[in-house]
């Protein structure tokens, strides 16, 4: 083979091997660090992987927030209008966290059915609702034959 061509072939081979290796690594690492989002209905149905980092979201059930008297431990429940899940968290809650408002939480679901949150995110202003939550609620309520709902304010919490 012509030496220039041979060199070129080597180069192309090198680039191919190296880049596929790199892309493989990146995709592998990406898969490992994905956090999937689940609404409360799925969390209680048992179809959610336990003890793995996931995301969840819903509206904070009014009256469900209870603070520990001596520490920063807090317990509350979230709902999508269909099911409710208990959440435990230790730390400072965001400014816009409030009962009856939407939250997104990052953490793990344990076998006792309690979601242990490492991070609690609330909406940024009073007109905003995390789209994952909005969509989850809309989907659930459509399945239930309820009219399309936009904010937590219209959820009925007696389910």
């Amino acid at each position: 083979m012509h030496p220039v061509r041979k060199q070129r072939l080597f180069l192309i081979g090198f680039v191919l091997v190296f880049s596929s290796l790199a892309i493989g690594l990146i995709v592998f690492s990406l898969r490992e660090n994905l956090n999937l989002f689940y609404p409360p209905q799925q969390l209680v149905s048992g179809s959610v992987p336990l003890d793995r980092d996931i995301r969840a979201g819903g509206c904070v059930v009014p009256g469900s927030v209870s603070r520990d008297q001596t520490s920063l431990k807090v317990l509350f429940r979230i709902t999508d209008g269909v099911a409710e899940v208990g959440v435990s968290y230790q730390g400072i809650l965001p400014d816009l966290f409030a009962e009856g408002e939407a939250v997104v939480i990052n953490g793990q679901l344990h076998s006792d059915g309690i979601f242990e949150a490492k991070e609690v995110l609330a909406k940024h202003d009073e007109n905003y609702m995390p789209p994952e939550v909005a969509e989850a609620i809309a989907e659930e309520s459509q399945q239930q034959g309820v009219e399309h709902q936009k904010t937590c304010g219209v959820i009925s919490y007696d389910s």
Partner: protein
Amino acid sequence: MIPELGHFALVLSLGLSLLLSVLPLSGSFNGRALWMSTAPSLATGSFVFVALAFVCLSYSFAIDDFSVAYVASNSNSLLPWYYKLSAVWGGHEGSLLLWVLILTVWTWAVALKSAHMPIEMRARVLAVMGMVAVGFLSFTLFTSNPFDRLLPGAPVEGSDLNPLLQDFGLIIHPPMLYMGYVGFSVSFAFAIATLISGRLDSAWARWSRPWTNLAWAFLTVGIALGSWWAYYELGWGGWWFWDPVENASFMPWLAGTALMHSLAVTEKRGVFKSWTLLLAIFTFSLSLLGTFLVRSGVLTSVHAFATDPERGLFILAFLLLVVGGSLTLYALRVPAVRSSVSFLGFSREWFLLSNNVLLVVVLFTVLLGTLYPLIADALGWGKLSVGPPYFNRFFIPLMGILCVLLAVGPLTQYKRTPAAKLLSNLRWPFVGALLLGVVTPLAADGPYLWQASVAVFIASWIVFAAVQDLRTKLRHRASWREGLSKLPLSFFCMHLAHLGMAVTLIGVSFVSLFNEARDVRLSPGKSLDVAGYHFELVEMRKLRGPNYLADEGLVVVTYGGEEVAVLLPQKRRYFSGGNLMTEAGIDAGLFRDVFVALGEPLDNGDWAVRVQVKPFVRWIWLGALFMGIAGLLTVWDKRYRFVTRKAAISAEAQEVPVAAP
């Protein structure tokens, strides 16, 4: 009347931009000098009318004209005047107007400073910028007009600016960031004009280098300001979250950094020509992608104002048009490029090439991590997010390698550097950096952290190698004073920017490794100790601001019995909308920040409080400031003096200014 005037000015500017994108360009094809020579005046006119529109909108904010829908939803008569003015870009419509204003400022600046260029080139560059302006002006006018009225039935009071945005950081962060984003449109315009002309020599690299450096400098400072703002206003002391919106501004920065370096090789040695053109296209495309991600509402964040799908669709279509059109042009023209110059190992070309490869790989990982949730959502794989560990896993080692090479690059020469000479030059920097790297972590309390050791090694490696570079450059001069005055400004700029990199690296690694944070429950009179500092919450009190009520904590910080600072963290409730805001109390220092933020009020008068001691956190932004200043100063380098520069000097005829004797 004034808002209508503004609207009219915008329409006029759109008309002028349309002319600008058609007339000079067609003139350049059929050789009509008169058509081509209209470009600078059209650019100026387009700028003047956008500026007029901007002034009109600012005026409407200043006089609280709530009949303008945008003013009503982003301002309030209680706002202090400076926030009324910064509220102009506090929402979607106004920030687009700012985008367009800055674009026309750049276009106008290019028109002013391009008199030395061949007339066809000048006409084409300005025409391409005119096309971008047409895109954004029609976006503003047709989907997000800031001058829309609420008539009849104008509200008597506005609904206030988002309290997060009522801050000094926000006054300057968006303009700086946009100066950077939009500034890359100049490099893009030069690249496209070159591709249109088909004369793919290195002249365009020379012309676009100062513009690219300037845009990069603004973007660097803009990103740093965003990070600083997040640190004290939004993030509870966090300064980078790998949030999609942060990534949106960071990706053009990575591409722009690669572009800057690649332009240097193209200008000096005439190699990487086609790659540099491609990079210029990508950098601006990433700026547009950033605008799309942030403005379309596909991402949820404090930046996502618009959730109107029509707007998102418009930017997406524009983005596809720009990327598709320029890549087609590229594919048609680039096969004609031939670079015959070769280079051997250990040449400066090799180091600049590895800079580009590393930055592009980092860029790719960030891009994938940012877009993957969107792709997954679109394909129905479920809602998901990509966590910071993914980004850190690739970013940290790759940037580490980049920084190690970055120290060596300036000591090499183009074409070929004798390995023995390079190694002997690097011996002392290496030994010094190694010593410092091993010893420094011992000074910190707690266990020995090898990561700190690596960080110190790399940072001091950069600094020592720069000192060595300076020494070799001055070796054959009569005195160091004479030697320094002979060195070009760009030499110092390069080292200042690299030094900034080292400073940021130290800041990032130290604050990540040695940060001490504690979330606690405190009542007035109680105290706690963090990292040797004693924090006492003396009392809580109420106070009233111009448009909010606040709970303020009085925290006295002592170290070894001596008072260090009195911090006044606040929890504000804004009257309009009832938004809650956390204002952290920070005592800033070069070597550490002491940080106290109020969480929420708990039962029996207790407060949730976050207390942090953050070593070297200021260095993150200090380094970025160095980089910004360096980028800014390059514009004054003799080689880029815009005046009296003879046009179209090919790179091959040019000698290498900073080669060692």
